[in-house]
């Protein structure tokens, strides 16, 4: 405790007065008030807490703020620009790829990461890449469909 640690979230630098071992998830949700990123398991098994760290989908529950020092963190809050949804968000909306919605932030961020690294994934690649994310409501088929739709619209 005590020392200040700087993290870069959505292009903005934040000074955190926190234990470097604090999870990125807690820092986002509690210190920065960005509650779009969710807790689901705390052990890297559900993907609800997924954010991008330098463009790579990362489970923020098992990532400390010290781990992301000097890196660029991107959360769900950064995707909508001037009222326009990111193509992946748009595709989730169009497809109705959720029910209770609790998994959506993590699903969308993972899918954004997927399309960054592989703009035209096959269905099998989508299933493989998304396999760390749980939707307990079982919207999986539509999530796959939404990602395919986003890929078609060139959404990265």
């Amino acid at each position, binding site marked *: 405790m005590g020392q200040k640690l700087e993290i870069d979230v959505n292009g903005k630098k934040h000074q955190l007065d926190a234990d470097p071992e604090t999870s990125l998830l807690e820092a986002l949700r509690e210190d920065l008030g960005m509650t779009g990123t969710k807790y689901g398991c705390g052990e890297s098994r559900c993907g609800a807490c997924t954010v991008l760290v330098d463009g790579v989908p990362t489970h923020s529950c098992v990532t400390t703020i010290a781990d992301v020092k000097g890196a660029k963190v991107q959360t769900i809050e950064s995707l909508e620009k001037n009222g326009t949804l990111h193509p992946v968000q748009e595709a989730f909306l169009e497809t109705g790829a959720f029910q209770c919605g609790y998994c959506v932030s993590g699903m969308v961020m993972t899918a954004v990461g997927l399309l960054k690294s592989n703009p035209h994934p096959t269905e099998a690649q989508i*299933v493989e890449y998304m396999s760390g994310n749980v939707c307990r409501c079982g919207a999986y088929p539509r999530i796959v469909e939404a990602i395919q739709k986003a890929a078609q619209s060139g959404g990265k």
Partner: protein
Amino acid sequence: MTTLPVEKSTAISRRALLKLLGGGILVAAAGPAAIAEALSQRNRPAMPQNISAWIHIGKDGRILVLTGKVEVGQNARTSITQAAAEELQVPMSLVTVLMGDTDAVPYDMGTFGSLTTPMMIPQIRKAAAAARQQLLTRAAKTFGVSADQLTTHDGKVWAGTRSASYGEVAGGEALTDTIPASIAVTAPNEWKVLGQTVRKVDARDFVTGRHVYAVDMTAKGMLRAKVLRPPSYGAVIESIDTSAAEAMPGVKVVRDSEFVAVAAPSLSAAGKAIAAIKVEWTEKPGQPSSKQVHAILRGTSTIAHPEPVAGAKPLSATYQCAYIAHVPLEPRAALAEWDGTRMTVHTGTQRPFGVRPEVATALGIPESQVRILVPDTGSGYGGKHAGDAAVEAAKISKALGVPVSVSWSRPEEFEFAYFRPAGVDELFATFTPDGRIVQWECDNFNSGPPGIECPYDTATPRTESHQAKSPLRQGSYRCLGATFNNFARESHVDDLAHACGLDPLAFRIRNLEKSPELQEVLKAAATKFEWGQHTPASNHGFGLACGTEKGGYVATCVEIAVDPKTKAIRVVRAVTAFQCGAILNPDLLKNQVDGAVIMGIGGALFEAIEFENGKILNPRLSKYRVPRFSDIPKMETVLIDRKDLPSAGAGEVPIMAIAPAIGNAVFQATGIRLRSMPMRLPA
């Protein structure tokens, strides 16, 4: 299954409501006799009658609908919005639904049992139709014409080219008529908003992460709390030393005999403070394990079956299912605020009016001093009937005099919520060699009677549910015990078909003369699946099953594959046909059906709570397997829209047929009959 506590129906004071809403039209609804009857049969309080307000029209023409139902992902918010928009003949965008705020909405038992569609939707339709009727009466006076010369569209009343908005006609005044029992509502074949695919209300807030769940809520000066959990069920505190926790910066400790909690500025600080408490426990010895549980639940009572009638052969079998967890992705959470007089709790629950007395009792204050509000919740599946997190947050907030947030960890959610009950089913049937079921008996132990009745044509079926002492806390679930009872029955029926040398589809149809609805869904699923037209590949099998509950009818056909080495079962393809009367929203219905089938794969193949000595052995997602992307078969869904039938709920029943369909397919592939859920082939 849960025994729901019977609560007093609490009528909301009209004055309080008017104050809350700032005036406007209030239509008091007399609940239809059928609802009152259904409720009294279940010995539960009726919906408030005559004095209850369901609909408010603001001066700005915006329409507020009030309901005690809550949104947990089943899209009740959307269907209720559609219902009000349909009958008021306004665009959905003018309608807002206020859900689950116990200070503002009429009393409601809770959001369970697929009751929103058959009970709340008709109520809202009638209330909305009556509201429109009163607007017409009022506008007729203003325009100096008779009401039947008026039309309504786009939130306005029209007399030829003259028009006035609903807001203007209402003028901020309350109309307090009761809903005429005879009020006409729009017939399903004339629906313009209901029956259509419309997007989930507030969908955009979910894809942007803006929606605020209970777990996301904060308040000024709020602390985050953790509760000290016993190492095993029934353990009591022998000695405790909280001084180290109390010495931590910003940490406060609350103790009320066995209830010990800490509150801190952050969740991790609260976690560290809990870990710093030195406590010795006296544990409760001799608690059973999951390995023995079915023998315990079954007990030793003897069940006498009748002699087979002449010419019939008997077939008996025993089935069992494990305790499973709901695993709502949003764990239980609550934000409680004590203002010195009243306790306000925001929490994700399916029963706000059930949580209110829980909180009141825990605090020793009258219910009138408790308000529960339910933000749209990260799912429930029957798992969020109780108010555990709400009670905890309320106790700590009252003790400390600051707002307190409690959000459970995943292990807490596994260990201290409640489970879908484990159970045993003993089946006895007799059949004639020409393919008729003659006698039918089913005895259920512990997991409850839903879905136990036999829909097949038998003269004197006997079904009975026997209570047992469950070693684990158990409660509701999606479709309650029906998933298991249906698994047992549909597996047994499959065995009967094979015993007669008949195709399982043909055998079912032959024995379902009394149920054209089940025949209809079976045929629809079978046609889509091309049942009987193909031979499965080696290590693959086809299976089908059907089921009915709560006015819904489902049939599922599956193709499964068995890994020749590991013997793991994978569902390759699932075709489900579902009929729930007049469909309210085809696309959202399809989403529900698919979601239920996928959830059903979990209970069918992997999910089981393991326990021993009062401890849950697999209380985390790394040890408790839920369906994932890679488990999802190719899915096809046939929705049968029966505009001639009343709409029935759809969140539950589609889960019923998948497990037995899988078991029947495994039998076809391997010749092995799996009688225990989750189903696993011996390696």
